[in-house]
């Protein structure tokens, strides 16, 4: 039944007009037990897990409820698998047609497991053999954030900036396309998504002064259909007559050029390495861009568009509908490539089409996704770089004493560059109206002095020293009441940030992991920890849930610490050097004492 339903949806997406699609599927967009008038924008992951966040709205919610608050204590390991690569296992597996797919960290092997047999034996492994020069170029470990399934293909990226389509049944390559060039510092770490006949992916590598972009490829051939740059002239940013930003500060011609010193937009950053969401009814893609190029903010006067910007674009042409620059002229490395969760729900008395964006800035943005208006921006953790957002102008009220300047000492800036949260994705439950945010609590001191050396040339490195923020904890799972824009409760982690994605289910459970390696289920209403299991390594991946051919519900998670913050667990990174790894070891002192690199997939059931 599940398979048939899904087939029908895909057919509807492919062949029907959007309005028709929306009308026909309205019923399935209301999940069982949802609060009044809370609706998904696309069907929830109800049995399989075919795209990175489970659904186009990026809710990471599944209605599956066979595992619930009553029986969760019976969960046990029913299968596990080693990828053989002890690096950060970010992202999540897919489950399609009784097969579970894993994309490993570099060298980005694709592994297929048969979930119809006990222990989930391996069906095949595909080796894309990416260029190993990518390893030296990637900033923050050699991670990959997962794949998408469409049209019988598994679509994923390799670190050397290629997108691959592999036959989901046979494990044979169908096409591979170079979407970037590692020789200019471009890499790909994100999980692509597929809408209709197009694949969407992005370029990372902002640390090396690249020019970020979203790239669309034809699903059948892999041919590049369009590129939407994050900096440069309107013609290359794909800004045309349909572009209607809500705020005056984001209006004007060729802002991607004029808001920079001459030529600097050519290495202006604005990487695209997070999550893409899609609204089938409005037919718009949503994603965010990373921080501007040249860290030294004093060298790039201006707002530096379109770094740190949330975009709405037409999926067929890439044409921008609106853009909202979250931080003008960044001085903190506050990437805003975070997930954008799309949900329809009542907001201050009337139904709104919302976009929820828990930001690296530490602010929780609620936006109208039709217009790009910010409806609310409230702090979800300790924040002092700005006191608030002005919703009339869209600008932050910045505390100038917390702005970094090279050669000046700026003390106690919260959050640190790692943000109030990083790319690690939240989950939203329509049954509780709560957004579950995996959050960090770190602050930093900033001073630009240390001598360093690159490409044969001495340069000045900033001394960024990070340390735990106020309150005696470093990570927390925050329950955010969306309708009332406030914190309800949190589950705190004293020693390490929460660096795992979140899953919410119809069984009123919220699953997430800790960097120590605990995999937890908490009560979606209260946050009470109902079950936990110690995995072999720290968790930086995202949980998923699916139904097996036996009708049982399963939950899967990677266990393999790594990534920017998690890389401190590796033997070659010292926790005693507070300035290594862009300053994060100061917040990660305990990690080597509590976990080691790992390479495992765990699958739980009852």
């Amino acid at each position, binding site marked *: 039944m599940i398979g048939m339903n899904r087939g029908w949806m895909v057919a509807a997406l492919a062949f029907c007009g959007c309005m028709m699609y929306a009308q026909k599927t309205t019923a399935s967009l209301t999940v069982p037990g949802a609060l009044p008038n809370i609706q998904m924008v696309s069907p929830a992951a109800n049995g399989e897990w075919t795209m990175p966040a489970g659904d186009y709205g990026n809710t990471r919610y599944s209605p599956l409820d066979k595992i619930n608050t009553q029986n969760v204590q019976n969960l046990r390991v029913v299968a596990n698998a080693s990828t053989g690569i002890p690096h950060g296992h970010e992202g999540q597996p897919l489950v399609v047609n009784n097969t579970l797919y894993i994309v490993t960290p570099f060298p980005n092997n694709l592994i297929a497991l048969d979930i119809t047999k006990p222990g989930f034996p391996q069906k095949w492994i595909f080796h894309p053999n990416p260029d190993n020069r990518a390893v030296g170029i990637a900033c923050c470990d050699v991670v990959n954030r997962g794949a998408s399934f469409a049209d019988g293909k598994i679509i994923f990226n390799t670190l050397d900036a290629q997108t691959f389509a592999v036959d989901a049944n046979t494990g044979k390559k169908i096409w591979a396309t170079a979407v970037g060039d590692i*020789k200019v510092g471009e890499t790909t770490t994100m999980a692509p998504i597929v809408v209709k006949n197009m694949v969407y992916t992005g370029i990372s590598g902002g640390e090396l002064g690249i020019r970020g972009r979203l790239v669309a490829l034809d699903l059948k051939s892999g041919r590049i259909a369009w590129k939407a740059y994050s900096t440069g002239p309107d013609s290359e940013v794909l800004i045309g007559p349909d572009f209607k930003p809500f705020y005056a500060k984001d209006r004007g011609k060729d802002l991607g050029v004029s808001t920079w*010193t001459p030529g600097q937009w050519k290495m202006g950053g604005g990487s695209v390495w997070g999550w893409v969401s899609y609204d089938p009814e409005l037919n718009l893609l949503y994603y965010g861009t990373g921080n501007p190029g040249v860290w030294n903010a004093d060298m790039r006067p201006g707002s530096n568009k379109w770094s740190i910007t949330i975009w709405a674009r037409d999926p067929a042409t890439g044409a921008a509908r609106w853009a909202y620059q979250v931080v003008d002229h960044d001085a903190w490395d506050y990437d805003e490539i975070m997930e954008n969760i799309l949900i329809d729900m009542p907001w201050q008395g009337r139904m709104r089409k919302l976009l929820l964006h828990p930001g690296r800035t530490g602010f929780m943005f609620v936006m109208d996704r039709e217009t790009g208006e910010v409806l609310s921006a409230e702090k979800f953790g300790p924040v002092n770089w700005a006191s608030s957002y002005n919703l009339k102008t869209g600008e932050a009220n910045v505390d100038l004493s917390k702005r970094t300047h090279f050669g000046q000492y700026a003390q106690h800036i919260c959050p640190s560059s790692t943000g109030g949260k990083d790319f690690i994705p939240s989950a939203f439950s329509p049954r509780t109206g709560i957004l579950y945010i995996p959050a960090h609590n770190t602050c930093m001191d900033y001073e630009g002095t240390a001598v360093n050396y*690159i490409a044969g040339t001495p340069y000045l*490195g900033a001394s960024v020293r990070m340390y735990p923020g106020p309150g005696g904890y470093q990570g927390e799972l925050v329950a955010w009441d969306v309708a009332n824009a406030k914190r309800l409760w949190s589950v705190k982690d004293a020693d390490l940030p929460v660096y795992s994605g979140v899953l919410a289910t119809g069984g009123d459970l919220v699953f997430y992991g800790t960097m120590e390696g605990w995999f937890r289920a908490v009560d979606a209403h209260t946050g009470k920890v109902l079950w936990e299991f110690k995995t072999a390594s720290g968790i930086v991946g995202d949980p998923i849930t699916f139904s097996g051919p036996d009708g049982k519900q399963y939950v899967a998670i990677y266990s393999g610490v790594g990534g920017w913050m998690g890389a401190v667990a590796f033997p070659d990174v010292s926790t005693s050097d507070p*300035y*290594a790894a862009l300053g994060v070891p100061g917040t990660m002192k305990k990690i080597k004492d509590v976990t080691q690199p790992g390479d495992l997939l765990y699958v739980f059931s009852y």
Partner: protein
Amino acid sequence: MCSVIKLWLLTGGALLFAANPALRVCADPNNLPFSDRQEQGFENRLATLMASDLGMSVEYTWFPQRGSFFRKTVGAGQCDVVMGVPAGMKAGVIATEPYYRSTYVFVTRQDRNLGLHSLNDARLRKLSIGVQVLGDSDRSSPPAQALIERGIVRNLVAFNIFGNLNEADPAADLIHAVENGQVDVAVAWGPMAGYFAKSAKVPLEVTAIDYDSSQAVPLVFDIAIGVRKADLKLRDQLNGELGRRKAEIDILLKNYGIPRTSDPGER
């Protein structure tokens, strides 16, 4: 390497191999004048000289000197030395005594007759000035910073220090931009500027930036060999050889057009 292998075969030997180990060098395969895979850089020559003095062969691990170079090469135990590091650098290596001191320089076309030598020259507010920048990591190039602190920002033209690895001499675009008039002046690290100016198509002028004691940002750096942290013995051996070979090293650097200075430097 070849002769080592032959000897190995002749003597059957583990003993010889242990007695004649390699000096393991991590270097950039495409970064002249410092190093390249054809071993044409002055750091390649210096490595050969040091190794032969120590009775060693040279064994390279090639790795682009960008991103996590130090962590993934000498920091990961891939090699014993990196042939050039600032003597004051503490992260990941211990430095030998410096073997040269250079400075950031102005590079202009001789036919422009600009005669620039001070960062306080009022003309720098109008001229277009090429500088190298370092992507969006938390770093700044010293001359860019020194200019920014003088309020000279809008007329800076940024060049990516990493350049494009598809091209030979990726970092040379800054000097080429002076040659072809794309910028009026480049402010560049002396060794790179001096070397590429020598082979420029039009005559270029390379002038050291005047020492300014009120200048907070260092523009003069002592350069040393970086040794992996545990190996104090190798550092001491190299210090001995650097002293003994000082005259040859000075000639080597001169042949590569490396500007030297006696101004006070960053240690």
